[in-house]
């Protein structure tokens, strides 16, 4: 027989793509207003610094920050004065720490979640540890692991471990019992339940944890480098600050922001790939 007429199917025709720029601007004026706002703020800032005679070491104008950024990026790849070497070191720390920390958190959270008693016993402690400001341990970790790469990786791993631990546990706890009952009715074993239902159901939570961890990893790298390091964007900030090179500090801040945005965007892209189904999960229930 034929499927019954479903109005939702009929409405699913795609919108006509806007032919002209004007149409786009009429429907999404924020595409113009947002950059205009940025230019206005930068202009005001540029004008206000000399007007109020603010010394450059207190607050540099945007042009000075831009210049510092350009100079720093124009240096050679391995120049200690340039930004590339330090950025590379920081990125390396971030990636290693993120992979180890969130990976360990995810694995441990997953394992703990598979045993109800273990999870119930540990949950209160893990939530308590999650609330601790682990960043305060940075000096001790540097003391233990030295000024090299290891201490930074350990700090970042520590910071990214708990978001994944906690969110993956929450994710496995939130699996719809109906799905598990279905699997049981179908005669699925533990392993099949895990791979076919539990893990995919927990993924939205796990990705929320990855997103958090991505931000924490950059915080961890900078703090770790503040405490003790020879290279990295954090050390660059410290040395510039000592020389009252505020414009330089701001320019490093921009680099760190870009790194953060890139980490976040990568997570979002991955998330959209893997969780293409997630936005509408609730619509599939019971309508």
């Amino acid at each position: 027989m034929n499927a019954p007429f479903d109005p939702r199917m009929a409405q699913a025709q795609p919108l006509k793509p806007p032919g002209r720029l004007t149409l786009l601007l009429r429907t999404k004026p924020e595409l113009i207003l947002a950059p205009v706002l940025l230019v206005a703020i930068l202009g005001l800032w540029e004008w206000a610094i000399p007007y109020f005679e603010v010394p450059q070491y207190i607050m540099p104008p945007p042009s000075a920050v831009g210049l510092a950024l350009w100079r720093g990026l124009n240096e050679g790849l391995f120049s200690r004065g340039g930004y590339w070497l330090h950025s590379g070191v920081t990125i390396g720390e971030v990636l290693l720490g993120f992979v180890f920390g969130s990976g360990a958190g995810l694995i441990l959270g997953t394992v703990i979640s598979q045993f109800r008693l273990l999870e119930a016993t540990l949950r209160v402690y893990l939530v308590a540890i999650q609330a601790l400001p682990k960043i305060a341990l940075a000096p001790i970790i540097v003391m233990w692991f030295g000024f090299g790469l290891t201490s930074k990786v350990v700090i970042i791993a520590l910071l990214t471990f708990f978001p994944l631990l906690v969110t993956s546990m929450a994710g496995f706890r939130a699996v719809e019992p109906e799905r598990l009952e279905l699997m049981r009715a179908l005669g699925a074993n533990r392993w099949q339940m895990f791979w076919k239902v539990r893990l995919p159901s927990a993924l939205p939570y796990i990705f929320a944890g990855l997103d958090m961890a991505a931000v924490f990893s950059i915080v961890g790298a900078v703090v770790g480098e503040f405490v003790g390091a020879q290279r990295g964007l954090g050390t660059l900030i410290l040395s510039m600050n000592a020389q009252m090179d505020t414009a330089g500090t701001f320019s490093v801040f921009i680099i760190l922001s870009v790194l953060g945005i890139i980490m976040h965007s990568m997570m979002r892209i991955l998330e959209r790939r893997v969780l293409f189904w997630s936005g509408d999960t609730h619509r599939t229930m019971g309508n």
Partner: protein
Amino acid sequence: MSIIDRVSLPVATEGAIIPSPQNLARLGSPMIDISHVEKVFITVRNERIHALHDISLNVADREFVTIVGPSGCGKSTLLKILGGLLGATSGAVTLAGTPVQKPRTDIGIMFQSPILLPWRTIIENVLLPTEIQRLPKVKARERARDLLNMVGLAEFENKYPMELSGGMQQRAAIVRALINDPRILLMDEPFGALDAMTREQMNLDLQRIWAESGKTVVLITHSIPEAVFLADRVVVMSARPGRIQRIIDVPIPRPRSIEVMGEPLFGRMTADIRRLLYGLEDGKGPQLGGGIT
């Protein structure tokens, strides 16, 4: 209220209803044999909840039995026991000659919501039971396509559940329940969440699927018209503890069209069941005749 009125044979109301011969014939070889099933839940506070009391029922091969009853009468519990998802406190359930102890592949089960996995396409959802059983993939896919075709979802096999309407999702769930070619289909209020028109359409479809596939079906519902429309026999349950109040034969010839619902016999049967459910009868059942065993 008298104790338990269990009527295992057809009853006639004022001579208008005559037990259909094929129903009597079907009763010869029970596909489902439920005998004296009790279920008592012990709560965390150590309270006893008597969910099911002395349930006995035989369902013949290819028979369609519906169960109606007030909320909390234990009908879902009964279905879970039939499906092997719950154990009975005492009593025995035998399906196709073998006692039920755990979920089995010769039983297909459907719930109120379709429970399709949103990350799988329709055909992948339908194939889930065959993956779990590790059946040959090519054959399973062929069968899935045939079944999807039967329920009118052939063009939707590569869509995701969220792209389908509620009725279509429930159709996919029917196909998933049929994919392992079970002898018995257990349905727990499968159309409860659908709007009235979709629901009637699904009832017609289910009747056709049942006739074509030759399954034995036990369906739980809140809707009295649905119960009468689909059933060879309607089991009326009452609550606290859940027990079988009455079993009523539906002698309306098949295939039934939706117009059947307008006929006086249909109206009389639904009215009688409604009276039973609302306790307007004290179990003696003048409308439905004697037949108390």
